């Protein structure tokens, strides 16, 4: 009786020196959290690989290969995993391996009827097994050739490689699903992500999480100019990011009054920059509270008026924390591609009014100078605005 298990491979983590153990423990803990909905699992490591197995025989998520693929996908979404394979685990002699291999290949061909050629690669960890690796390859290959019609062997570029491993148990699998690589979340401190509801900011969050960062997020809500649906959309985006980044808190700042005050008391063409400066200060205060050590934005150089070098320089000045901008040199198309890859794109492009396009000037200053911002903020009580923003926050656990 074979069991479906998952074999996951670690990447960059294995290059770590003395810290490697910490990274591995974090990775296993992240896998455990990410896979919590799939029943009781045993997650253990052997060298640079991690095995994920159901603890109970009746675990429905591993009952067949189709349902186990859902678990497989979740595994590949955990940063630190380079690839993963759905694997059959069983006991027995070479006869048992032959039978299981044939059954596995038949199942595989149903999913991939285009497969015509294959080869077998074998590893023998259990040196007491009577056949060595080349012999296992030969035996299993010949057996599959004989029993599965329509297949031929191609050792140079096969359509699929059938892997056979003999250790304390036997394993067969073919192919692997690529993971999102990166470093385990929780190994690089915490960042506060400014999440807007557009395409960029979820991608920025994903990218920093891929370097091991834990996230919290802040969203500036301008009801009634932005609707409840717009907020729900941001919550949905936060959930998508949290598939990769794990647990996070979403801070929803009630921004309406602050924006109205700005609108009434400062010049139109500097509004976006003034607004961003206040947003960053509020975000920094919230970050301090939540233990985050940096701010993360989805800015990309030159994308809009507030993302020119001058504008970024002026918005940077008001906070002490580092502001990480992982998309700063990225092309919009590349960002969209990543957004699709993480499953955020369709949600990002929903048509609800964004962080208030209502307040955006028709011709904002693209190259603001210091005098401009001084003039723009002279009638504003920025400290009071920041304080009221920090005070009027709804915290949503994602």
């Amino acid at each position, binding site marked *: 009786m074979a069991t479906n298990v998952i074999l996951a491979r670690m990447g960059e983590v294995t290059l770590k020196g003395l810290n490697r153990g910490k990274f591995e423990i974090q990775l296993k803990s992240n896998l455990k959290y990410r896979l919590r909905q799939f029943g009781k699992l045993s997650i253990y490591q052997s060298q640079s690989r991690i095995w994920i197995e159901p603890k109970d025989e009746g675990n429905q998520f591993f009952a067949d290969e189709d349902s186990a693929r859902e678990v497989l996908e979740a595994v590949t979404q955990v940063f630190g995993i380079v690839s993963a394979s759905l694997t059959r685990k069983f006991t027995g002699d070479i006869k048992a391996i032959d039978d299981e291999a044939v059954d596995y290949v038949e199942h595989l061909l149903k999913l991939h009827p285009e497969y015509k050629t294959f080869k077998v690669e074998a590893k023998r960890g259990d040196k007491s097994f009577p056949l060595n690796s080349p012999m296992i390859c030969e035996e299993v290959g010949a057996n599959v050739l004989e029993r599965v019609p329509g297949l031929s062997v191609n050792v140079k570029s096969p359509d699929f490689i059938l892997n056979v491993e003999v250790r304390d148990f036997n394993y067969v699998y073919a192919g692997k699903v690529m993971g999102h690589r990166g470093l385990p979340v929780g190994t690089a401190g915490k960042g506060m992500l400014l999440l807007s509801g557009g395409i960029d900011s979820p991608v920025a969050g994903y990218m920093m999480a891929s370097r091991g960062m834990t996230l919290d997020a802040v969203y500036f809500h301008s009801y*009634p100019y932005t*609707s409840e649906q717009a907020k729900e959309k941001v919550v949905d985006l936060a959930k998508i990011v949290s598939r990769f980044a794990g647990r996070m808190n979403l801070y929803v700042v009630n921004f309406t009054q602050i924006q*109205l005050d700005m*609108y009434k008391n400062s010049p139109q063409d500097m509004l976006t920059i003034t607004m961003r400066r206040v947003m960053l200060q509020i975000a920094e205060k919230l970050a301090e509270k939540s233990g985050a050590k940096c701010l993360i934005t989805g800015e990309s150089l030159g994308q809009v008026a507030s993302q020119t070098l001058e504008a970024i320089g002026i918005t940077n000045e008001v906070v002490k924390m580092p502001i990480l901008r992982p998309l700063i040199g990225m092309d919009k198309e590349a960002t969209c591609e990543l957004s699709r890859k993480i499953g955020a794109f369709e949600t990002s492009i929903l048509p609800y009014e964004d962080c208030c396009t*209502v307040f955006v000037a028709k011709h904002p200053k693209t190259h603001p100078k210091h005098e401009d911002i001084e003039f723009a903020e002279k009638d504003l009580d920025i400290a009071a605005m920041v304080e009221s923003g920090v005070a009027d926050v709804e915290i949503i656990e994602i």
Partner: protein
Amino acid sequence: MIYFDNSATTRPCEAVIKAIDDQLGSGELYGNPGSLHKLGTNADKAYNKALERAASCLGCNKNELYFTSCGTEGSNTAIRGFVHRNKRIGNTIISTKTEHKATLEVLKLLESEGFIVKYVPMLSNGKPDLGSLSDMIDDDTVLLCFTHVNNETGALLPLEDIVKIRNEKKRDAAIFLDCVQSLGKLDIKLRNMGVDMATFSGHKIHSIKGVGMLYIRQGIKVDPLILGGGQQNNMRSGTQSLILAEAMVTAMEEAESRRDEAYVNISAVNAYLREELASRDAKILSPDDALPFVLNVSFDGFESETMLHCLEIYDIFVSTVSACSSKAKQVSYVLLETGVDRKIAANSIRLSFCRDNTMEEAKEFIGRVDEIYDLYLVKR
């Protein structure tokens, strides 16, 4: 709370709730009207009784009426069923581009099947250009589809003129009328209207969602949309729901008995709002002679959705274009079709009233609008 979104749906009235309670509570009327035993025949009798009451409200015969699940089902059945069944009459359908989607989408489908659909141009008063209509009707015309009262603007259809033109130009071309917004508000006596088919909805007249009616004049042949056990004279298969029938008919009777009084009250509310709004930064988009229950207005400086949410703060509920399409973030096609400027249409809000709305509510509404202009106006 002020609910000015009654064209989207209405609150079930007490008479309807009681009728449903009575039905559910009786414990004796759950039989299938198609069953041959006593329980079945009792249900059938009650069902027929409901039909009779509906027929008396609508001024037609009970065998001309069918219960449906909603107004949309009625439109689908009537339009598709009629043109499929009556190809010998012709292949051309005439309608307008300001119809509800329940009509427009069916017409689109029929076009793809090979039917020709001609759209009568709309005038700025919300009415179809009758001269064009007269020119369009020819030997090939099989069906005319119109809306009695437009759901976004309240524009009234010049039905008598249309019937007259049809009678002159092509007698056997049928007229389908969407009465979803006019039911309970206008005097509808089908027998004298010259209409061949009509659809009605329950939840727009304080019944519940899930029930509507379809009228098909005696002698008019229509293919059914839903096939099955042959219930409702083979026109609409599926076991009849006595509860839904009761909920529909009770709402119709209630609406009928309070119709005149409601019309007078809401006319006053409408006139008041028109006057107050026109003296502010708002533009009335409903035609002057529109049904008073619908008032479409464009607020300068506020996009539709922003105004909707501003009003929501005060527990005032209105709608932007028609509720079904609000999420698509489009400007109302109805307004654009009647020549309203895109910018003005983008700021349009529909207020829609029911018999329970009051002048006090209208006054509070105006007060809140002023407050909203003070607090939230952002001129770009």
